[in-house]
């Protein structure tokens, strides 16, 4: 009874505070100075058409590196929590085989999903999307595979290798920015190219490809771990 009362009370209090936030909020009428500079000089300075990507990968690149680290830590954490002790018998659970509809659909959909995922992160600097979105699409393809055939085993060696090297590659690109251009994670050490082309915006596509690969393999590994 007391517990219910406290829950209700705290929710009411928060609701009250939130109400005031909503009432006091007035949407801005113009971009603030930092955003304006990003929008105005982003395409020229960094060569990217997608300004959100420019913000993510270069202007606030350290945040994105931290984000990749968070994903990495989550995957490691899930691996730690769900690890199988050496010598413990792996239970052969009776898996209900997926219906034929799913099985056939997988053969058809999987390549499409993979291509879509790769397309999204390769074009991150030109169209909406980017490394994380593309990686998530890749992982959902893997999830489809896992759902369709529960006995699928991912080749752990390749997954681990891909994950580690793409993560390390990201750090290396950052350092290259430090050594060859203005600062850590500066993308201008590669030629900026023609605006709007696939190979433009310096190192941004490279970073996003690395992120896409890393996220895709990471999430797939996590999903596979949870399958058991």
């Amino acid at each position, binding site marked *: 009874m007391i517990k219910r009362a406290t829950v209700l009370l705290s929710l009411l209090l928060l609701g009250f505070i939130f109400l005031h936030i909503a009432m006091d909020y007035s949407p801005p009428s113009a971009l603030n100075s930092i955003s304006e500079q990003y*929008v105005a000089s982003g395409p020229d300075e960094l060569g990217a058409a997608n*300004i*959100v990507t420019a913000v993510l990968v270069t202007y606030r690149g350290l945040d994105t590196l931290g984000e990749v680290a968070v994903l990495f830590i*989550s995957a490691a954490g899930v691996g730690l929590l769900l690890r199988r002790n050496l010598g413990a018998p792996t239970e052969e659970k009776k898996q209900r085989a997926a219906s034929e509809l799913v099985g056939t659909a997988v053969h058809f959909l999987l390549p499409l999903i993979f291509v879509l995922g790769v397309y999204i992160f390769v074009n991150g600097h030109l169209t909406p999307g980017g490394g*994380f979105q593309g990686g998530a699409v890749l992982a959902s393809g893997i999830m489809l595979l896992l759902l369709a055939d529960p006995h699928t085993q991912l080749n752990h060696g390749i997954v681990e290798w891909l994950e580690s090297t793409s993560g390390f590659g990201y750090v290396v690109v950052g350092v290259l920015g430090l050594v060859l251009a203005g600062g850590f994670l500066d993308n201008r050490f590669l030629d900026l190219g023609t605006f*709007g082309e696939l190979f433009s915006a310096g190192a941004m596509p490279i970073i996003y490809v690395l992120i896409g690969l890393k996220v895709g393999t990471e999430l797939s590994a996590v999903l596979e771990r949870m399958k058991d």
Partner: protein
Amino acid sequence: MSLTMDGTSIPIIVLASGLIVVLVGLWGMMSRRNIIQIIIGFSLTDTGIHMLMVAVGYLNGRTAPIIDDAVDRTQAATLVVDPIPSALVLTAIVIGLGVTALLLAYAIQIYKKNGSLSVDDCSELKG
């Protein structure tokens, strides 16, 4: 009651709904007995906050900050919404995903040890 879709009210609607979702999520976290439902409540709270963040970035009548046919490069600063909250939201979503994944791993292990997903079986869980 006519709902005029004038630009000034859109961010406030999204903001308010986001905050409502946050409250629903919090209620779920505090009142549910099943661990999975608690985790869902947590995920809802996160989503509500992301809605809030996106709402903060919106400027009336403007479009996405991507320079293509719809947005002219030279006039972009007057045509696009704030790109920063979008970037922040992306990072926040990924981080929320990381926490949720870990919570689910916890749930799996607790289920293996307890045989059930009910919070009542965990006598030490005082909430």
